[in-house]
């Protein structure tokens, strides 16, 4: 680990192809322990594909170095077992099961390994998302969009992942809820949880992140400390222009 310069995740030369179409061509990405790294970019840039490939949902070529081990096109379950968690864009909740059951299943691997401290985590998540506590006996399918997102994040956190990856957590959410969710990411980062955040809401993402990658056409177009990118004229023009005015109106 020390020789790796506490790199928790290091992706190098990652390629993903859908048939003959290359969705990702040679991505390099690094995330150090405790960092919140964001990946921004337009629709179709390959952001979701990147997370899916790292998670093993999609077959890929290239190396994925995670938590001191190298993986080559690994299985999802293997990576989950090594401490990787993904909140997918589709949420992937168990819609006919209760909110509480959804959360408990997030701790399935911990339970299987004989770790019984997940009750504490459950209490923590309920205090982080009081709404989930109120609805704990309700079926997940009956929740609103924002609540579903909270549930998906909470469920991923139940597994105490070393790295939490989030795919478009603000997609389709009301601005107020988006702000609350980003506040939670900032909180989690302060608690030392490493986060890889894929977002379309570039401004909000750059505000909470330490480091950022800009993905365009399946390649890394730019990367650097989030604060620098937030002031980069090209980024402001391409991603923050209209959005920034919109956000300012909201936050005022």
């Amino acid at each position: 680990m020390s020789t790796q310069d506490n790199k928790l995740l290091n992706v190098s030369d990652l390629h993903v192809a859908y048939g003959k179409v290359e969705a990702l061509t040679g991505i390099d990405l690094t995330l150090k322990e405790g960092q919140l790294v964001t990946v921004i970019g337009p629709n179709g840039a390959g952001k979701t594909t990147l997370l899916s490939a790292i998670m093993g949902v999609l077959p890929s070529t290239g190396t994925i170095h995670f938590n001191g081990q190298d993986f080559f096109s690994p299985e999802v379950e293997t990576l989950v077992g090594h401490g990787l968690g993904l909140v997918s864009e589709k949420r992937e909740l168990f819609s006919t099961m209760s909110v509480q059951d959804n959360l408990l299943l997030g701790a399935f691997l911990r339970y299987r390994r004989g770790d019984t401290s997940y009750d504490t985590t459950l209490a923590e998540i309920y205090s982080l998302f009081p709404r989930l506590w109120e609805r704990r006996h309700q079926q997940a399918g009956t929740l609103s969009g924002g609540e579903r997102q909270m549930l998906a994040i909470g469920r991923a956190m139940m597994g105490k992942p070393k790295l939490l990856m989030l795919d478009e957590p603000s997609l389709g959410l009301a601005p107020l809820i988006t702000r609350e969710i980003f506040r939670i990411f900032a909180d989690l980062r302060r608690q030392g949880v490493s986060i890889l955040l894929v977002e379309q809401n570039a401004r909000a993402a750059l505000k909470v992140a330490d480091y950022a990658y800009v993905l365009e056409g399946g390649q890394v177009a730019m990367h650097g400390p989030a604060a620098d990118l937030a002031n980069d004229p090209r980024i402001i023009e391409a991603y923050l222009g209209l959005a920034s005015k919109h956000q300012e109106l909201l936050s005022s």
Partner: protein
Amino acid sequence: MNLQIATLLGQDGLTNGAIYALLALSILLVFTVTRILLIPLGEFVTFGALTMAAIQMGKLPQLEWLLLGLTCIDCSLDLYQQARSRFNRRKLQGVALKLGYAATLVILVHTLPLAELPMGAQILLTLALIVPLGPIMYRLFFQPLADAPSLVLLIVSIAVHVSMVGTGLLLFGPEGARTKPFSDSGFHLGSVMLKSQTLWVILVSIFLIVTLFIAFERTLYGKALRATAVNRMGARLLGISPVFAGKVTFALAAFIGSASGILIAPITTLYYDSGFIISLKGFVGAIIGGLVSYPLAAIGSVAVGMVEAFSMFWASGYKEIIVFTLIIPFLIWRSMTSHHVEDDE
């Protein structure tokens, strides 16, 4: 028809219905978790009954060789897979454990005085021989096809069924067999004699159904299986692997199937090929539940048992036809009321 005949038929119907309910539940369970329609379920029933019969007659059940052979194939596949990636201590231990288990059973079957064992030990031995066949069957025939369309899975399922019937003929021979009842006493209910085995079947079935219900509602492992049935990808993202879920459901199905076989063996004579028609009636029950609802499937199965018993009295020649015709009105009703759900994977 007088009351006495009605009670007798009802008793028969309830006994068969309870067994069909158990089978319907395992068909449903396997189908929702793995998308496989488990046609070979009936073979677990006959294997259970015939193994039990062989043990009671003091004959070698021969099934131990099947178990050992399949375990060897399973283990060599495991080793081959590990040789391609990296040898892992825990997985090697797993292989050793599986081989050790099968070898121990072979030795046990060949050394124990089978016929003299108490009934409980005979039942345990039968289950110990058959239940591991479930997960091995999943591993060998279905796991490599986990992402195949449902139709392919169905075809493979039929193939496995046919080869298991053949294996059954090879292992147990063409003769039918019956076993001793669990206990000899009978009960009088008014003027009707209740066979004790009937009570055993009904009580054990209810016990198993309730236990399954509690396991699926209350334990995290049960919830994990339900979660796989609801959303496979969601479950995978939490580390619940479909392979794990598949093996567990197949083990449960093998257990329920062979337990049903052991339960009914004292009441009906079973042949190597009787399993199919029995599990098919469980399947009718499962269809009545729309292949989704457990309580409806259980109620439907009891109804199947009842219809079967009473049609035996009124039109015994048409018994099977009447039972399987039951499925048609339900299919029509289902197709009119249910909407098509897009297949996600």
